[in-house]
């Protein structure tokens, strides 16, 4: 099957999300669609998947035009999509999830679960997916859950499988396994569209790379010939510094000290298990780990959003274990939260209001109970220009900004004051290449000014390049302290997966 997008244009009020996009995909090849956030990748795929109707242009399957009015049409035409956020029912088994919506039925319309199991086993064997049809989905690692999604798509007979940022949630080892699966799909004559913002991965797996910028395809490159910096430049429209530029660090006194801290979640599970570490002034300590290994809870306990059940937190030797979030904020702790939409910003409030969200009660911005909006506005204008936040005005809702600019709002708010400790969780998640460069340089600048910096990221490359010291978290414990300069990504990946490099064959 050949799939062609011809002259696709999709407009939203005020934006052209896709501007005359032409793309073709043949079965048996991997097309990587790469571009910054807001470049129009998701919109394009939603058009292809029948969720949006294009304003102009055509979709052609084997040279004949088709019209998709719903995902069901797209599925019928042989297009499958694996979303970044999986759409699985956590308490159902693999087989139940896979057949949801296309249930095989026995007599009287009863669910034929044996048939469903058989179907899963058959597809799983054919593509080497190694899935147990009776496993409960919520018990499975994320990488395996993704395979369940893949089986779902294959069972609906997809000729073309679209993966939306499939590696974002995977460990390095799972990513390698994922690429193997992609190769199997290709060998079986299916086509794959691989949406990503990770240049290395696109270069690694794709047969062709199409670069999207501001809704347009700015070029197609051959991964055998192109380099990372070439593609990055195409994505952003200017040369980009991909490597974090930093001088050797000069650590000072211990600023943050955590002693035997444990955190228990609402269900009573121990998420952080007797963790001890310290961060010195002028150094970046990174915490690597697969998502869900206690990093979120650790950061929330450090910033006061969650109670620790045991242990102590010291800031400049002062015990802050029971201080409120605001007290910690005032004592010089900055917090860039991992989920900017949920925690870092109030989407419905303006850019200016978000820029003072954690500081509106300071004398600078309020007198008694009355806000000083002119002062807040003036400060906002300064931050907007200083941090290069691209917004038409300080008064529009922050939710209308791109991901990168939203993140810059948070970075500007949190770093634009005298700090002792800066805690950043996933500081560049879903942020475009240009903004990543900027945010990284800001963090290093903060370190050089003598702030203690704690970075938590699931992007191994990010923690490795930013950190002076690297801690690996696995199931609530810190399982390794490493020097990122002398440790390989593969080894760190093994720690993240809970094993030790020394035990592995390659070590």
């Amino acid at each position, binding site marked *: 099957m050949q799939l062609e997008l011809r002259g696709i244009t999709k407009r939203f009020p005020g934006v052209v999300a896709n501007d005359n996009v032409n793309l073709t995909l043949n079965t048996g090849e991997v097309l990587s669609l790469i571009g910054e956030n807001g470049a129009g990748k998701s919109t394009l795929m939603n058009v292809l998947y029948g969720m949006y109707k294009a304003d102009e242009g055509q979709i052609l399957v084997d040279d004949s035009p088709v019209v998709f009015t719903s995902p069901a049409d797209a599925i019928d035409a042989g297009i499958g999509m694996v979303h970044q956020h999986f*759409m699985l029912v956590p308490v159902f088994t693999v087989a139940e999830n896979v057949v949801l919506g296309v249930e095989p039925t026995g007599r009287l319309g009863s669910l034929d679960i044996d048939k469903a199991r058989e179907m899963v086993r058959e597809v799983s064997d054919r593509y080497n997916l190694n899935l147990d049809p009776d496993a409960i989905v919520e018990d499975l690692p994320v990488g395996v859950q993704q395979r369940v999604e893949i089986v779902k798509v294959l069972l609906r007979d997809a000729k073309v499988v679209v993966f939306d940022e499939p590696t974002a949630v995977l460990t390095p080892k799972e990513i390698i396994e994922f690429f193997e699966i992609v190769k199997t799909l290709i060998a079986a004559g299916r086509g794959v569209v691989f949406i990503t913002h990770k240049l290395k991965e696109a270069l690694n797996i794709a047969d062709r790379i199409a670069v999207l910028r501001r809704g347009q395809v700015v070029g197609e490159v051959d991964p055998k010939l192109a380099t990372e910096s070439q593609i990055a430049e195409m994505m952003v429209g200017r040369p980009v510094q991909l490597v974090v530029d930093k001088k050797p660090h000069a650590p000072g006194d211990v600023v943050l000290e955590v002693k035997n801290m444990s955190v228990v979640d609402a269900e009573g599970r121990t998420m952080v298990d007797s963790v001890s570490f310290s961060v010195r002034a002028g150094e970046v300590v990174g915490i690597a780990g697969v998502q869900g290994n206690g990093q979120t809870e650790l950061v929330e306990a450090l910033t006061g959003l969650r109670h620790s059940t045991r242990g102590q937190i010291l800031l400049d030797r002062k015990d802050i274990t029971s201080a409120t*979030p605001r007290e910690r904020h005032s004592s010089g702790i900055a917090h860039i939260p991992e989920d900017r939409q949920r925690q870092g910003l109030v*989407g419905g409030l303006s850019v200016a209001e978000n820029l003072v969200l954690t500081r509106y009660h300071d004398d600078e911005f309020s007198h008694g109970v009355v806000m000083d909006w002119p002062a807040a506005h003036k400060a906002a204008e300064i931050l907007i220009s200083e941090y290069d936040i691209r917004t038409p005005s300080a008064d529009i809702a922050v939710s209308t900004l791109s991901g990168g600019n939203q993140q810059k709002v948070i970075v500007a708010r949190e770093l634009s004051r005298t700090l002792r400790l800066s805690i950043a969780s996933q500081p560049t998640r879903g942020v475009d290449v240009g903004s990543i460069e900027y945010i990284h340089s800001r963090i290093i600048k903060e370190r050089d000014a003598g702030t203690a910096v704690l970075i938590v990221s699931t992007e191994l490359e990010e923690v490795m390049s930013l950190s002076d010291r690297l801690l690996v978290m696995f199931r609530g414990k810190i399982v390794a302290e490493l020097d990122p300069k002398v440790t390989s990504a593969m080894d760190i990946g093994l720690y993240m997966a809970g094993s030790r490099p020394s035990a592995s064959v390659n070590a």
Partner: protein
Amino acid sequence: MNIVGKSRNLAARIARTSSFRLTILAVLSAMVVGAFIIILSDVDKLKSGDIVGAIQTVGSAYWALVIGSVGSLRAISATINSATPLILCGVSVAIAFKAGLFNIGATGQMLAGGMTSLWVGFSMNGPGIIQVPLAILAGAIGGAVFGAIPGILKARTGAHEVITTIMLNNMAAFMVLWLLKTNLFQRAERTDPISKVVTASGHLPRLFGFISDRPDLIAHAGFVVAILAVIIYWWFLQRTTAGFEFRSLGLNADASQYAGMHIKRLTVMAMMFAGAFAGLAGAAEVLGTYGYASQNFAGNIGFDAIAIALLGRSTPLGTLFAALLFGALQAGGRQMQANTDVPIDLIVVLRALIVMFIAAPLLIKAIWRIKVAPSSTGQTFRGWGS
């Protein structure tokens, strides 16, 4: 926690949904459907095939609505009188909405505030310049105290305010019934639950008191209190730190907690303020409209207020205009019933339709073919996991 979070979301969404245009269109749509109801209920004319006559009934009914609400000074006064408690209770529901809370308890808070206000109203005997403000203040305090209860329950135990405010409405109703039978409140020589009369110096002055010989102009200074309340509400939201916290909390509770705001304190505060505004409505009714309290002086106002806050998208001006619209419908409805055979119940239908159309903005968008930008150009699906 989950349900609470969801309702916060819903409340925030309702506070934001639909533009001014949608509101107008919802009112228009309701009028159109109302017209069909008038025609269909005019059985005699329909039987005789007198379609023109039936349509004429619609015309005269709606005309009477207009005349009865704004057609004369008397009509305007009646509209203002009906709108006064609606504005105050509307602000009560709106301020809670803004903080992400559903205040279904305006009725109970209004009853509580009305009773405390009444107590000052009949116990004191002038001078008016002191007694009236004191009685009004007593109303605000009574409402605030009663409103604080669901706030505290929510902050302390997580009890959902929808449930607790509804229950407290019932408790307030029976408490009023009991109070009206006590020696303190019950009018001398009466056996039914009816209160003593507010002393002459305690009455809210008539708004059009400067025009002599017009006892039919019933609007009173409660309207001034209501307008002041709207202004205070606006000032609070836009100019104070707590107002900023309310707005932030209503839009995103997680981010507000992250920003160091005291969610529990704000929850109690929001319900307390909501109660204070509803309490003022009670004061206005007791001191201005009736001059005493009977068992059911709050009527349906507390519930209509929910529709009003919805209709006005919880903004100060929106709530004011929505309450004026409802007040006009109330006043005009009486005229309509008098002039035509259309019963005043049609007003209830119209209001219900307006609310329905507001609550279903998609329906309005479909009917009037409005193109609306999707809220995000990105992912439409959201699953669990990751």
